[in-house]
């Protein structure tokens, strides 16, 4: 009877494609909106993730996120270096600066000050120039998206200059960096060079980046650093989640996106569920006919579930494919760079679509089960 179920489903091509499209549309709504939300949240922690070498981040106890900083004295680096289990510790500056372009326009930038000797925190992929060029006087490296932002429609060219805090900065390299939450260009400079570009403050150091010795327990090391320095020490993962939660709690983004995702879910459920439900209801007389001819209720349930699985799998595959394709096509668009459909979202969408299809199946199965086969005579 599976063959009959398949034939009933695919017999009317237009109706069949309509049902699959309904589920696909529901899937794409859920997957796409959730992916954008997740990718946006990921952007809030892009500068944490990009610093791949560090295991632990040490920061001021009042820090709430990677973008809400309270500086530390430079001496904290030495204090942390003295904690057992620390392989190395270096300073990192992160702050906002205003740059004046040659055309006189002023732009806000994110400035990253890297440890002068190790350059820990440096971008991992250089597109133009070399990381070693950062050791030149007044040298800065800019991210590709930032370059396009500062110099729109202009070819990539090294040696361009900017002015920050009345100091000249020379672009010696263009790198690839994860796009930040705020779409500001990112400049990388050595720590002591960055100090000259940033506004003067009593303290300058943003973080102490720590590499653990092999075999060290991260939680234990963080505890020891906190005891020794009185500062907050978090693993990269902990710091990233703290930042994500800061944005979720203190901005309207999650509410707005939550509403969009929920609407996507509701609209997707309505379209996919209603389409499949109506399909089964339209076939009610055919099921009644089969019941009259000796098909048991169990067999009919199997037939409807088979139809649901086919529609669900096809619709989901098309939907998730469309969502992934959207991000693939737009990966070079600056404002959408780095956006993607993570596997967790794909899985969640699969669960959601499964839920939608099963729900509509159960509702329609109920109708079929209570259907008197005598309906065939009406």
């Amino acid at each position, binding site marked *: 009877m599976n063959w009959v179920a398949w034939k009933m489903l695919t017999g009317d091509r237009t109706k069949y494609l309509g049902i699959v499209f309904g589920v696909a549309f529901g899937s794409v709504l859920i997957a796409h909106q959730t992916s954008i939300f997740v990718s946006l949240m990921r952007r809030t922690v892009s500068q944490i993730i990009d610093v791949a070498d560090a295991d632990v981040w040490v920061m001021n106890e009042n820090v709430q996120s990677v973008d809400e900083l309270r500086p530390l004295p430079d001496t904290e680096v030495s204090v942390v270096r003295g904690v057992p289990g620390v392989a190395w510790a270096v300073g990192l500056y992160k702050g906002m600066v205003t740059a004046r372009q040659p055309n006189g326009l002023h732009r806000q930038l994110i400035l990253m000050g890297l440890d002068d000797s190790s350059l820990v925190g440096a971008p991992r992929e250089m597109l133009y120039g070399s990381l070693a060029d950062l050791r030149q006087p007044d040298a800065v490296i800019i991210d590709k998206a930032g370059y396009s932002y500062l110099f729109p429609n202009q070819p990539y060219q090294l040696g361009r200059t900017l002015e920050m805090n009345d100091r000249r900065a020379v672009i010696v390299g263009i790198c690839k960096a994860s796009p930040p939450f705020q779409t500001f260009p990112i400049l990388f400079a050595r720590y002591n060079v960055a100090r000259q570009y940033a506004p003067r403050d009593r303290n300058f150091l943003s973080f102490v980046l720590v590499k653990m010795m092999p075999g060290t327990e991260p939680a234990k090391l963080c505890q020891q650093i906190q005891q020794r320095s009185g500062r907050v020490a978090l693993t990269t993962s902990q710091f990233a989640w703290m930042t994500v939660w800061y944005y979720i709690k203190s901005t309207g983004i999650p509410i707005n996106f939550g509403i969009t995702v929920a609407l996507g879910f509701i609209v997707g459920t309505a379209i996919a569920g209603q389409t499949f439900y109506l399909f089964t209801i339209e076939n009610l007389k055919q099921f009644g*006919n*089969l*019941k009259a001819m*000796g098909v048991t209720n169990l067999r009919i349930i199997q037939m409807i579930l088979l139809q649901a699985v086919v529609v669900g799998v096809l619709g989901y595959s098309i939907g998730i494919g469309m969502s992934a394709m959207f991000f693939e096509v737009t990966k070079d668009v600056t404002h959408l760079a780095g956006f993607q459909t993570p596997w967790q979202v794909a899985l969640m969408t699969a669960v959601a679509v499964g839920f939608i299809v099963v729900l509509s199946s159960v509702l329609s199965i109920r109708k079929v089960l209570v259907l008197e*086969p005598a309906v*065939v005579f009406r």
Partner: protein
Amino acid sequence: MRIVAPLVEPAIAVSCRGITRDFGDGDTRIRVLHGIDLDIPLGEITLLVGPSGCGKTTLISIVCGLLEPTGGDITLFGESHQSLRGTRLVQFRGKNIGFVFQQYNLLPALTAAENAALPLIIAGMPRRQAVSKARETLETVGLGNRADSKPSQLSGGQQQRVAIARALVHEPRLLVCDEPTAALDAQSGQTVMELLRRVAVHPDRAVLVVTHDNRVFEYGDRIVSMTDGRIEKIETRAQRIAVRSEPAAEPIANELLSVNRVFGSVDHVA
């Protein structure tokens, strides 16, 4: 001259005793069938006739086990409905009863051969074998050349012939036809009834046809007339012929009918 055949008891396929059926509850409860006693013999076409709403469809639904009676008992081929419940009843129905519906009820997605093969597939026969056998059955109803057509590509009469093939493919012992000619023009209706008489009537099969189309009355071996949920009269072919051809035979026929009302069946009258 009148000739009365000996009262031979024909083999009975379906026996209904005291069948009642109510619909609704409380104040809205209405009785649709009032104690129906009826025997449907093997090897004959029994027509169930009467005006709309007289309970014909309800009665055949009960006979086929598609609807539970409120009271009374039905025996199908020696098996009481009460002993057939749930899945057993569904399987019994699938094996022993074939259906022909007014609106054909063919699955639009399947070809004629696939539609006709459905009862065999339901019974568990492999699809290819079932479709092959269904093609043979379609030959017998004159549709061998349309076996691969979809219902939408067939005329009403052809669709009804496919439905007949579907109803007969698994060689059921009871064939139930609900208004098989109602949706057809006169010519197609005649063709369908002739076909039913030619291929469906079998000594081991009972054929029950619900109709209010008086053009097909001539095809019935026995006509059961219903009014307001009761059997008004039962008339055999022989009785009809006798009544029509010889006025003097009428009292005898009426006498037989009165016997009929008591016992729920009429013996052959020649």
